[in-house]
């Protein structure tokens, strides 16, 4: 066999091996999610079956019906949790976007002393573990009467989201050339007008993805919510998920169904902004 032929064969073999590796990796990424969806659709008997039933005999939406009508095992008020989650996540996202825009603009457009230090300082507030922060917040909130209220959770999540929103939005404003706003100002705009008429529209896709990131953080957060909420008046979905675990038994099917309900909004939103998210976070990668 001549050398050319072996080389070609070898390359084809590695090609195949790498494609198979990619396929397996993607399967591992998808599998847990599909497993959850599948189990939310089949009866508990089948989930518990020994030996395992691999191909479901019947599929039904009973788990979802039970969940939303509140008559499932234990009658968990999913609709109420869903509403709380929505209110808290949306409000805190809006507020942290407003704060993040002003902060990000300051970092992108002004020079001031200790700029790097301020930036790092703001980021480090995000590094405080939720559970560690929950201890003093719990005490303070109990004093002020914010425990188990929407306002308390909104405030906490706003603080959680601000550092990251600033980082993202700073990156997006830096991609907008300074000259554009300056040209607008020479043409007679005030700085305020130049911002809203020129810079904001250009950075808008980025700001939208920062908002979605903030929304997802609030939507998914558990450590703070589990301590600062008490009842149906403010419990969010991640905390509600634990309602399905009773003392010794777990309603696997119900939990799977709730998991699917939680993941769908996140899935749609992430899909919508994926492109901007990555470009925004890496825009500062090379020129710091």
């Amino acid at each position: 066999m001549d050398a050319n032929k072996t080389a070609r064969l070898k390359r084809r073999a590695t090609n195949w091996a790498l494609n198979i590796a990619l396929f397996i990796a993607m399967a591992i990424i998808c599998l847990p999610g599909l497993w959850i969806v599948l189990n939310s659709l089949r009866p508990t008997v089948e989930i518990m079956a020994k030996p395992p039933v691999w191909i479901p005999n019947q599929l039904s939406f009973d788990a979802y019906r039970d969940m939303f009508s509140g008559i499932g095992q234990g009658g968990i008020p999913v609709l109420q949790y869903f509403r709380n989650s929505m209110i808290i996540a949306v409000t805190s996202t809006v507020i942290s976007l407003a704060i993040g825009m002003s902060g990000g603009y300051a970092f992108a457009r002004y020079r001031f002393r200790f700029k790097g230090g301020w930036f790092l300082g703001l980021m480090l507030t995000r590094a405080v573990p939720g559970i560690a922060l929950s201890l003093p917040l719990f005490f303070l909130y109990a004093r002020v009467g914010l425990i188990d209220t929407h306002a308390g959770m909104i405030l906490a999540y706003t603080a959680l989201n601000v550092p990251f929103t600033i980082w993202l939005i700073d990156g997006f404003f830096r991609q907008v050339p300074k000259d554009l706003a300056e040209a607008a100002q020479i043409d007679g705009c005030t700085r305020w007008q130049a911002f809203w008429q020129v810079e904001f529209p250009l950075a808008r896709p980025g700001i939208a993805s920062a908002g979605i990131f903030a929304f997802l953080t609030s939507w998914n957060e558990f450590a703070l919510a589990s301590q600062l909420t008490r009842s149906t008046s403010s419990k969010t979905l991640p905390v509600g998920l634990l309602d399905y675990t009773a003392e010794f038994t777990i309603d696997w099917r119900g939990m799977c169904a709730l998991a699917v309900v939680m993941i769908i909004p996140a899935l749609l939103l992430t899909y919508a902004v994926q492109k901007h998210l990555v470009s925004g976070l890496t825009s500062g990668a090379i020129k710091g």
Partner: protein
Amino acid sequence: MKAWRLPPHVALLLPAVIVLAAVVLLPLLLSLWSSFTPFRLTRPDTIYDFIGLRNYRRIFTDGDFWVAFGRTVLLLTVALNLEMVLGLGLALLVERASRGQRMLRTILMFPMMFSPILVGFQFKFMFNDNIGLVNNALQSLGFTDQAIPWLIDGRLAFIAITTAEVWSSTAVFAIFILAGLMAMPREPIEAARVDGCTPWQTFRYVTWPFLMPFAFIAMTIRSLDVARAYDIIKIMTDGGPAGRTEVLWTLIARTAYSDARMGMANAMAYVAILLSIAFTAFFFAQLGKARAQVAADW
């Protein structure tokens, strides 16, 4: 006469600073103070007793605390390194795929959308010794006929938790490194190949240095949020059975809310906070260095 006004950057940063001071800084000062007191939730006036460093002395001589601390550091080291290596591999695999890149990237994003609490629940389900996917598959394929106690044995539980953690966060690394690969100019690679570099040399000396800042951005973002492992562990094992998977964060939660010993828990929390901050600051510094390197070389 002109009225004195705030400089614009101060005015712009003020809202962020106010919110963070009120919701993060002030509570942290309070918890710093209470870590020097024997504060218990059930007896609010104990917050005024100053006992100096007694809480700290007690946790530093406590074996359970050090075991939890060691386990936390081990978990983070193993998980972050695995995520980095797997993420790099995944990014390289996706980059060389000729078709369906868009779809592959969307799938890559998939684990990022899962809330940590969901990741924990889903792996608790899969690793369940009786009805879980992992044991069912192993039994159906005939590798074993026993139910492997994934979440009951301490060592196996550690593996299960690491798997969950790696599954949920490898994507972050893969996505950022992929972004780096896409942004990379082609000529240096071709030049290296023409100059006779092996593929490994090309990767080691040309591609990797360029990818470094991207990898460190991913690292920094991850380390900002390392404590989200708490959610995963909380739902998978809750530190149990008998403290065999206890990490710093579950220990804090237990001390504070089950035992109601807030002062003690706050002392532990400070150790956890310093740990997170050390991780973040370290990677932030590395990011700066890698950026400077790339700026100098390219």
